[in-house]
């Protein structure tokens, strides 16, 4: 048994470290963008359009991942795109998590009319196709970073609410909750000190997943040109532009896609890794 657990922990270690390393790079890139970017993200130079990456014939020094059809440096734009992605992941992820989890805990623990109202709203919410819902919201709220974040929160809180409610419901049936009642804990204290620690691992896993999803939603909105003004670099915007020149300059599409893919994957893996590492029950 001991060694079986050790095995899990070692694998969790690799998972945690690799995804953590990528996320650290991602955060650093976003924060230090003006310092580390090789070029100006908005500088257009038609003389330098569609330069291939550094290791291919016809490349120019200083343009490591090539340039797009307007001659803007792809690496620089990916680094600046990380700023938007990070802002969306953190703000939208946390806000979604807080609102959804709080409602889920209340519905699952107190039941009764609170549960009926919250669950009904969730059911109605889930009936809207999310992407159309988002496009509709942006149309109402107007484009811009804050609108994008608001749209993500408005759409995705149900994801937390549903899962956290179900988990809270499960935990509420356990005898340790009854024993808290016998011990004379108030309802609120039981919820916060008994149930929350047991639901927290689920919330953390969902949160990291949600951060990845938020980045994807932002990319989708950028892709359909409903996100942030076009002079700000975003991964989704880059992918949308790269799509039109895929045959002449694949790198414009592929590199932001790789950045997006690894970031979203790392968020999910990081959450799993955290859970395996720090959950006393699994540990």
């Amino acid at each position, binding site marked *: 048994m001991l060694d079986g657990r050790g*095995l899990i922990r070692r694998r969790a270690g690799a998972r945690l470290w690799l995804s953590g390393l990528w996320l650290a790079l991602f955060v650093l890139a976003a924060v230090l963008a003006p310092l580390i970017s090789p070029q100006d993200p908005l500088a257009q130079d038609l003389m330098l359009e569609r330069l291939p990456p550094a290791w291919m014939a016809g490349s120019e020094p200083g343009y490591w991942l090539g340039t797009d059809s307007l001659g803007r440096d792809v690496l620089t734009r990916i680094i600046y795109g990380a700023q938007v992605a990070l802002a969306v992941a953190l703000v939208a992820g946390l806000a979604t998590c807080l609102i959804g989890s709080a409602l889920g805990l209340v519905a699952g623990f107190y039941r009764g009319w609170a549960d009926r109202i919250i669950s009904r709203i969730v059911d109605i919410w889930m009936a809207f196709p999310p992407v159309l819902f988002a496009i509709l919201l942006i149309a109402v709220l107007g484009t811009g970073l804050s609108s994008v974040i608001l749209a993500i929160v408005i759409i995705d809180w149900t994801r937390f609410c549903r899962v956290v409610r179900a988990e809270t419901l499960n935990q509420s049936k356990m005898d340790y909750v009854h024993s808290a009642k016998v011990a004379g804990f108030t309802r609120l204290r039981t919820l916060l000190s008994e149930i929350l620690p047991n639901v927290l691992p689920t919330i953390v896993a969902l949160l990291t997943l949600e951060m990845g999803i938020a980045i994807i939603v932002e990319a989708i909105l950028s892709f359909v040109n409903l996100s942030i003004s076009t002079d700000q670099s975003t991964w989704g915007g880059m992918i949308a532009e790269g799509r039109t020149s895929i045959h002449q300059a694949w790198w414009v599409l592929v590199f932001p896609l790789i950045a997006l893919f690894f970031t979203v994957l790392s968020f999910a893996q990081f959450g799993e890794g955290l859970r395996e590492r720090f959950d006393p029950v699994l540990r």
Partner: protein
Amino acid sequence: MSGFLEIRGLSARLAGTGQRLLRSVDISLPAGSVRGLVGESGAGKSMIGKAVLGVLPKAVEIVEGEILLDEQDLLKVPPAERRRLIGAKAALIPQDPLTALNPSRRIGPQITDRLVDILGWEKARAASRALEVLVEVSIPEPERVMRLYPHELSGGMRQRILIASAFAAEPKLIVADEPTTALDVTVQKQILKLISQLQARHGTALLFVTHDLGVVSKVCDTLSVLYAGKVVEDTTVQRFFAAPQHPYSQALLAATPRHTDPAASLQPVPQAVIDAAMAEVAADDAAWRPQGGAHG
């Protein structure tokens, strides 16, 4: 004279760690007799039953030994052949009647499937056999019960159906894994009597896994007491309850509740007995040299 089931020198361990789970277990079960496997949780009693039926979890690897079923070593035949052999000659009565039946299928097919798929019987023959065994375990209106779903029956009825299902293919060996632990005492008595009756009538060999020495004294002919995967005592029921030989067996018997003699029962197992048993196991391990299939 060798038994219908002969386990010889069976050792198993947790894959990857080398932690021993079964320690050179020898068990002999003649055709038509009943042997109890007794021990506390983690002693390996269920694991022996699982090894015989070839359903050990992947994490458990058999290091050495033989499991002879009707004189064929199950560990030496290829997996597909082993499945066929076990399917034809052995069956299981599981512990939990609530989870052992598929809740979304009717009772009838759950009994006949095994006969049709594994033994290759015709459907009509399987169906009539199913009716026959349901009558044998005293299920009223068997035709109707065959069309019911498990949740429409009580726990005791479901356990009867599992017993019927185990006896349906006329196996020569049945492994019963704590078959009455989940039931009320009054139902337990009926179920145990039923198993004993069927076993005697069909001359089935029965390997009875249980933690309850009271049950052993009512159902079994012989018993093996297990501690930490080692058989510490192998004897007949008459001799065991008259005078258990191993100190651990004595302590186990003294710990068993007995309402007819409250003063002499429910005695905690003395630490010295546990220490001695652990030392015995450790000495055993030190002297043990695995023969084949072991690495390091």
